[in-house]
């Protein structure tokens, strides 16, 4: 077996190591907690959930800050995930680059929209 670590490591691809792996898990954890927080507020509210109750959940400042953090986490998480998918299935460099550019535009656009919704509430 040839040596494939340290200075003799063969570098192909990108982002070796911990960063993407860890960021995907940390962002997943944050979104998981957010899901439970929203769910708890829906379940433990009295009476049917109409507009007032639903909008009330997102109206408090701490919830806005948390939701904002989740939107950024989502953006990051999905970027890592989609990039993994493209690296596995799309081999031609040009097509992969185009898809990655599309993903960046799609995600930042969506995140901007979500933040706008959140902060005009």
């Amino acid at each position, binding site marked *: *077996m*040839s*040596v*494939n670590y340290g200075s*003799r490591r*063969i570098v*192909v691809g990108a982002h070796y190591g911990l960063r993407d792996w860890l960021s995907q*898990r940390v962002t*997943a*954890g944050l979104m*998981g907690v957010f*899901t439970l927080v929203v769910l708890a507020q829906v379940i433990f509210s009295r009476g049917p959930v*109409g*507009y007032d109750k*639903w*909008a009330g959940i*997102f109206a408090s400042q701490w919830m806005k800050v948390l939701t904002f953090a989740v939107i950024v986490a989502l953006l990051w998480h*999905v970027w890592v*995930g*989609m990039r993994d*998918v493209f690296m596995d299935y799309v081999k031609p460099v040009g097509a992969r680059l185009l898809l990655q550019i599309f*993903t960046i535009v*799609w*995600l930042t656009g*969506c995140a901007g*929209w*979500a933040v706008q*919704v959140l902060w*005009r*509430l």
Partner: protein
Amino acid sequence: MTELAKKRPEFRNINAFSDLPSYRLPAAGWVSILHRVSGVLMFVLMPFIIWLFDTSLSSEISFARFRAAFDSGLWFVPGVLVKLVTLALIWAFLHHFIAGVRHLWMDVSHAAVSKSFGMRSAQVTLVVSLLLTVILGAKLFGLY
């Protein structure tokens, strides 16, 4: 010149229709590929998700529009199709969530990466996500 990585076997000219159906995936394999499928599905439908977030939250009037989309449809899409797409999103979220928790669990626990636990947890992931989808889908389509 650097040493070349050990050459991996390459499988070429795989026909998706004649070759792939004969592959029998174990439960963990299904969880894995469906984790990707559900993730990509939510990525593609993200504008619809944010549209739901927007209309349900912005005002009383938009909230009424949000509710109406499931009955009288949205733009040129009939209401039943809006419900079906929402159902697909519900499944995608549930599967991605539960499979993700399984992933995190396997990251932090040595006991969770045994062969038997891997199979059991994969089966639980598939069954629970489908079961919850059915329960929430019945609510979505007004069965209770």
